[in-house]
């Protein structure tokens, strides 16, 4: 269970990333966060594994306030939270297998990992996870030889190898074309259901959000402006989140959203 209690985050330059967030996410939920560019979606997600540090409030993960974590306890926290990125963040020049096994680094001694000595079970796990996302035949390919969709699948395999309790995904399909996007979302959904892993995903596209989410959280300017089951989302919700209808006919004076 993840709980945000009056959580705020102000970036060093004064930008308010999160404003007083109160949210509870239950185990096994598939939550999609939507919102315009700059709404704070990434900040929200990255707070959970402390890639950014909220400046105020409490963030409870598995009963502990993670804002106090650092060093060892922070690494322990991160071990149980897997993360998937928009730009895959694979080491392009390393093989697929090496990328996937790097999900096990948190469980492996420094020296052993430097000499690539992973236990057999870990190798097995990595390979099984590659099979799970159907890409086991690319085992020894270099990551940069793969297409975007394949790279994202490798990064899912990497996260699975970490055996996380929570998966965070920051716009995992923004760089992919629609059919491939759906494929990736389906893998995520399948894993969420099969392994009961809490999954929190940022998405730009509301239609995709409605299709896969159990629950949708809408953000605007650092605040949560909508929170409810995907089934209850309406055209109106959309307007609320984006702050205006998108079909507006006033073409002049369009403000910039980036």
């Amino acid at each position, binding site marked *: 269970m993840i709980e945000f209690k009056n959580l705020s985050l102000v970036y060093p330059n004064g930008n308010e990333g999160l404003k007083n967030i109160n949210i509870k996410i239950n185990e096994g939920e598939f939550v999609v966060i939507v919102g315009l560019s700059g709404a704070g979606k990434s900040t929200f997600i990255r707070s959970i594994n402390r*890639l950014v540090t909220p400046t105020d409030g409490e963030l409870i993960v598995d009963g502990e306030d993670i804002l106090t974590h650092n060093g060892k306890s922070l690494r322990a926290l991160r071990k149980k939270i897997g993360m998937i990125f928009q730009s895959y*963040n694979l*080491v392009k020049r390393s093989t697929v297998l090496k990328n996937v096994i*790097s999900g096990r*680094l948190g469980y492996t001694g*420094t020296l052993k990992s430097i000499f690539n000595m992973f236990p057999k079970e870990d190798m097995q796990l990595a390979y099984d996870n590659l099979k799970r996302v159907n890409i086991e035949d690319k085992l020894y390919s270099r990551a940069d030889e793969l297409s975007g969709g394949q790279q994202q699948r490798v990064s899912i395999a990497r996260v699975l190898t970490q055996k996380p309790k929570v998966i965070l995904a920051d716009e995992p399909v923004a760089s992919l074309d629609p059919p491939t996007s759906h494929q990736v979302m389906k893998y995520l959904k399948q894993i969420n259901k099969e392994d009961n892993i809490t999954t929190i995903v940022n998405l730009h596209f509301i239609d995709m959000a409605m299709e896969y989410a159990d629950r949708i959280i809408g953000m605007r300017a650092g605040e949560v402006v909508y929170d409810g089951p995907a089934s209850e989302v309406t055209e109106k919700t959309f307007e609320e989140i984006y702050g205006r209808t998108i079909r507006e006919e006033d073409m002049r004076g369009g403000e910039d959203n980036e």
Partner: protein
Amino acid sequence: MSFKLPPKPKNRPAVAKRVISLLALLALYIWTITSVNIDWGRVFSERTLENFDRIIPQFFDPAFEETGTILVKMIETIFIAYTGSLAAAVIAVPLAFLCATNMVKNKWLNTIGMWILGAVRAFPEIILAIIFVAAVGPNPFAGVLAIAIGSTGMLGKLFSEVIESIDMNIIEALEASGANKMQILFYGIMPQVLPEFLSYAIYRFEIDVRASSVLGIVGAGGIGTLITFAYLNRNWDEVGMILLVIIIAVTIIDQISGFIRRRLV
């Protein structure tokens, strides 16, 4: 509406700066051109033509009978350059990490690193060579040391630029999965920088083959002695031959290293 572009935003200090720099540049050139001491009469004299007549034919009629001696020295030169560049490549790595602002967040340490590299680069190779000849005697090892120290400055700077340009997102991804600093180094940073490191080291090796041709002057080994002797004795056919050997050797190295670099990236 009659045409009128909105006025260009005038940034007075910037414009003033630009004018001042232009004037400074102009002054610099005027100073240079008026004070440089070129004897044009000599340059376009019959002497030059006579020299062309005497030197150029010899130069392009290389002294093939010297091939043996020159080759031996050339191989020595290559060995010196190789040993020296390899040592430099090793020494440069920690210094480069020290200088890279995305690795060491402490500004002071960065600056210290930069100063070390800068100081090393300021020393002319010939002075390094003298110091090392005095230290270890007049032999190729002195040349190796001069090359090693001389190359560390440039390699360290290039390496640190490579490190600064890596994809930090990957580091973030590894951090997010609970890896520690050493693991991040080996799984996230090394695979990204190693090919560039190697390729710069090879590039430096090529430069060093040429640079070590100077070292012979002080007895630190290599082909430099031959160049000086050939010049002092005005044996242009030997200079031609030495140049031919250097061109061939460097071209071969260039081909091999090009091949290796293509496979690396």
